[in-house]
């Protein structure tokens, strides 16, 4: 079998008709809302004219509160007890997504705590990756934040509210979110 590098298959838009195929009951509830340490992570996805996008799909992938990486299956049929670390939420008519989860811990000796986020939408020809950092201590030593221009850094940092965190995503324009390219992504 060949071990030579292969070129990746191109991505394409999720299109307008994903709602019957991808979202599922419990997709956005990584933990039950009644759990003592449950938080809400919510935000609105905006287009370049500042209008909310009602047909985006947001996925989060995160560590447990103690910083361990979840290795359990069961995200598609949650049992209410096992934390799998991954969730999926389509935006609603107002462009809003809302997850019920727990705050991620810092992984592998890092100081900053963050969610990995991937964004899909009708009109978006390939997925976009970003990070949602929790505000507070630990951000000063983060290499990625340090590499982002100071005036755009805030697009990667959530705002705390009474129930958890708010993280809006701007695909374009005023306050455009910093989206990431990883070394293995050729273009």
């Amino acid at each position, binding site marked *: 079998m060949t071990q030579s590098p292969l070129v990746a298959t191109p991505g*394409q838009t*999720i299109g307008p008709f994903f709602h019957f195929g991808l979202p599922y009951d419990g997709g956005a509830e990584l933990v039950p809302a009644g759990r003592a340490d449950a938080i809400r992570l919510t935000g609105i996805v905006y287009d370049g004219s500042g209008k909310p996008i009602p047909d985006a799909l947001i996925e989060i992938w*995160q560590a447990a509160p103690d910083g361990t990486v979840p290795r359990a*299956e*069961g995200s598609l049929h949650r049992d209410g007890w096992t934390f799998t670390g991954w969730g999926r939420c389509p935006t609603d008519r107002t462009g809003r997504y809302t997850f019920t989860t727990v705050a991620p811990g810092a*992984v592998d000796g890092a100081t900053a705590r963050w969610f990995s986020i991937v964004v899909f939408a009708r009109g978006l*020809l390939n997925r976009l*990756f970003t990070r949602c950092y929790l505000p507070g201590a630990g951000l000063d030593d983060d290499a990625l934040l340090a590499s982002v221009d100071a005036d755009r850094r805030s697009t990667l940092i959530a705002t705390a509210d009474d129930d958890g965190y708010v993280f809006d995503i701007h695909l374009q324009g005023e306050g455009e979110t*910093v989206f990431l390219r990883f070394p293995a992504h050729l273009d």
Partner: protein
Amino acid sequence: MTTPHASAPAGRGGLSSQADITAEIAALSENYLESGATETQSRLDYPPYRSSVLRHPTKDLHHADPEGIELWAPVFGQRDVAPIESDLTVQHAGEPLGEKIEVTGRLLDGDGHPIAGQLIEIWQANAGGRYIHKGDQHPAPIDPNFTGCGRVITGADGTYRFMTIKPGPYPWKNHYNAWRPAHIHFSLFGTDFTQRMITQMYFPGDPLFALDPIYQAIRDQKARDRLVATYDHDVTEHELHTGYRWDIVLTGSGATPMEEQL
């Protein structure tokens, strides 16, 4: 529809014509060929796909070395997906209409290693080109025996296999008389989260390829070809169904960067 093809712009509800879109596609293709660059992915900024105009970032994507949780992928398994979910033809009381097909292939990473035990999800239109979605109201019939979504967990050698119906092409409102080539949407995970992606698999020889601004948003012909399945008579089964083969390659994992391996 009896609307003549050459109707005036007013008769098209202000939409561009296919000729306009085709000319835009040709101009962007010419730019690409002149640039001498090699693209492998869809352009995010591709105006012939009108919905992309306000939905692509205008700033360069920011270089990031994957860290922490990004170096891992969520785990899926038998708790998540029942074996029957990979057969889209048995989800209802009767048999769906249309050409029954098997779609099979392997899920690989950028080094050619199989991605085993990972989740693949698909969704698609029925044989008449109609989606089970309130947003699809064009006059083609719903098939009561076909929903059009499935899931599978890849095998130890990265193999996946779906039994389904060949989807029909369908109209959309990007421009006047716009039709999407027949396709199946695929949602894919790798061994780290930076490999997460969604794409569309097409069928060989589709006459709509040249006209479609989503397919053409991949400006490189070789890259576009990577989304087209191959008819495989060894997958076809006597008196049962025809067969298509389509292998999927995800980007390299964070553990094995590929930046020097163009």
